């Protein structure tokens, strides 16, 4: 099934459905979980709000037609505080108590991995949002039947960052600073190193810190002595801002580069001049018209800006609705099967799920540059 511009298609479809049978009362329950409290609460709330908003819009337009019946969607969301143990609890609750047919989220790989056996037992598919560790969907060469994701994976992101740094920025000597106690950071670091070396570049410094650290000058001073062309910083915006400031304080002028942990208003306000001219790999181009439409709807409803996670969960909802329509019946098994042949256009790009990996294949990454305190889209970049 080919859907061209999803926003338009969805609208047409929904209008048609709503004209068809307006007084159906059948409900499909869809689970969501993520961190609503704790230090990742910003992202969790953003995702959950987006899911609720989209479901409202879909229901207002008449619901989703599965097989011969039309259903409305209901979101059942739980907070797992970003904790792996809680993730298992919550998924058990969603599958056995709430009887959801599919689950959206979580954003952290460490929370998405341990839920796999429970999903398999309950036969309920999950679409992870920003869980980029390859092991979320594939383990020991075998694809997990009920785990899917909407984002690209660490090896891809690492390859894009390395490729862009080498090809476009013409960097030959790269230094890395990463968070050794963070899974996401370790993953990106590993694949950046592998790819950058493959291109022929040299890693002149490979330094780390630990979550909670605030002073990076010892590592940065060491990096400075190696005089790299760029510094790759695969971690989240708080530490990015701190380390960027400290690097500039030490008189370092190198171009900084990062991944999808960067985008945030706080990076600009706190990093200010220090992050000016830096590049990062992102899932989407903020100026894309489709993106802008969702952004505006979200802002209108909640009065705050959406974060990166919102875009991805938006596309996860699209994936799910598309799969529901093709599934023929609203059961986890049927939905999982339909998800394997997903091929839609979302706001973060074309999502074509591979049945072998359950990852969206060939999703272009967007390279963003910080110019004048704004995120400026540079180009789409696909790793070779």
């Amino acid at each position, binding site marked *: 099934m080919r859907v061209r511009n999803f926003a338009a298609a969805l609208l047409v479809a929904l209008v048609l459905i709503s004209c068809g049978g307006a007084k159906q009362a059948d409900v499909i329950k869809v689970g969501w979980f993520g961190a609503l*409290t*704790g*230090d990742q*609460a*910003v992202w969790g709330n953003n995702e959950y709000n987006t899911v609720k908003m989209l479901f409202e819009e879909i229901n207002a337009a008449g619901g989703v037609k599965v097989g011969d019946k039309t259903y409305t969607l209901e979101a059942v969301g739980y907070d797992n505080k970003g904790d792996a143990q809680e993730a298992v609890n919550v998924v058990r609750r969603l599958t056995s108590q709430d009887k959801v047919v599919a689950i959206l989220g979580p954003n952290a790989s460490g929370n998405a991995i341990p839920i796999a056996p429970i999903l398999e037992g309950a036969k309920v598919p999950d679409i992870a949002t920003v869980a980029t560790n390859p092991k979320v969907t594939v383990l020991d060469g075998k694809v997990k039947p009920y785990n899917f994701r909407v984002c690209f994976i660490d090896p891809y992101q690492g390859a894009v960052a390395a490729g862009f740094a080498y090809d476009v920025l013409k960097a030959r000597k790269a230094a890395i600073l990463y968070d*050794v106690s963070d899974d996401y950071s370790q993953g990106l670091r590993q694949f950046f190193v592998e790819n950058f070396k493959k291109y022929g570049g040299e890693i002149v410094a490979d*330094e*780390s*810190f*630990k979550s*909670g650290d*605030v*002073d990076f*000058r*010892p*590592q940065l*001073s*060491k990096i*400075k*002595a190696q005089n790299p062309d760029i510094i790759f910083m695969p971690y989240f915006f*708080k530490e990015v*801002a*701190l380390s960027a*400031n400290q690097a*500039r*304080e*030490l*008189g370092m002028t190198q171009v900084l580069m990062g991944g999808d942990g960067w985008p945030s208003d*706080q990076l600009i*306000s*706190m990093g200010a001049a*220090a992050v000016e001219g830096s590049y990062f790999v992102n899932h989407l181009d903020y100026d894309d018209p489709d993106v802008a439409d969702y952004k505006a709807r979200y802002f209108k409803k909640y009065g705050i800006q959406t974060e990166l996670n919102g875009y991805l969960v938006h596309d996860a909802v699209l994936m799910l609705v598309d799969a529901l329509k093709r599934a023929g019946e609203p059961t986890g098994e049927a939905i999982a099967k339909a998800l394997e042949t997903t091929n839609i256009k979302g706001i973060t790009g074309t999502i074509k799920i591979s049945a072998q990996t359950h990852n969206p294949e060939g999703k272009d990454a967007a390279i963003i540059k910080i110019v004048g305190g704004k995120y400026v889209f540079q180009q789409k970049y696909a790793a070779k």
Partner: protein
Amino acid sequence: MAQFLQQMVNGLSIGSVYALMAVGYSLVYSVMNFSNFAHGGVIMFGAYFGFFGITLLKLPFPAAFVLAFVGTAILAVLIERIAYKPLRERKAPFLYFIISAMGASIFLENIIIATIGPTFRTYPDVFGRSSIALGPVAVGRLDLIMFAVSAVCLTGLVLFVEKTRMGRAIQASAYNMKAAALMGVNTDRVVMIVFAIGGMLAGIAGVFFGMKYTVYPQIGNITTKSFVAAVFGGLGSLPGAVLGSILLGIIETLVAGYLSSQFRDLIAFVILIGVLVFRPTGIMGKTTEDKA
């Protein structure tokens, strides 16, 4: 060589942050003889007081600074009155104090998360972020100011303890609380003053920490480093706390700079254990035998 000098400057700067945090903790330890783990929470409140003083109340920096350390002094005394005083009066074992302190620190951290939220905040730029270049070595402007303020605070504290009546009462209580009480020292007041001073130091540490880095509810976690530093220097000794902090800062920096940044904290921990095994009283600590 340039790198080595820079690393020493980095180490001194990190160490002086630890020192500012460790001194208040060590002072309280010297009198109360227990680790006040709520100290980190008070530091965190100091950072928030200063931050909201500047942003919300639109105070000039010096006023916000005073607000912060007066606020934390009051907070520290309040914690003492609520969480420790009843235990003191009951002569409860040391374990109860530590647990009560843990409760206080959990409360402080989470009340901020529940009311203000978990996100971090950035101090407005007060002193400028630029650094001064001394040849190849960059010295942060804020570091210099912080160094000066720490020196003034610590000198003031030493003078207070050595030269004033209250200070001597504190010394006497630190030596032996019961004997001091018998000799007519109002130990309850001494404890209050000690917590107030500890709280002030925490407030000062908090504001500088916030300015240098950022403000967030888990600042207390970083202060565990300063506890380690205090043990390193000799628990209960003020010069020991300062020396231990500076040494820990330099050791961490040199480990990260020349050995392995991956294992920085691990190596720091191994050094701590080593010190404990071979010199249980720390660098400056004095051996004491419990009075039977």
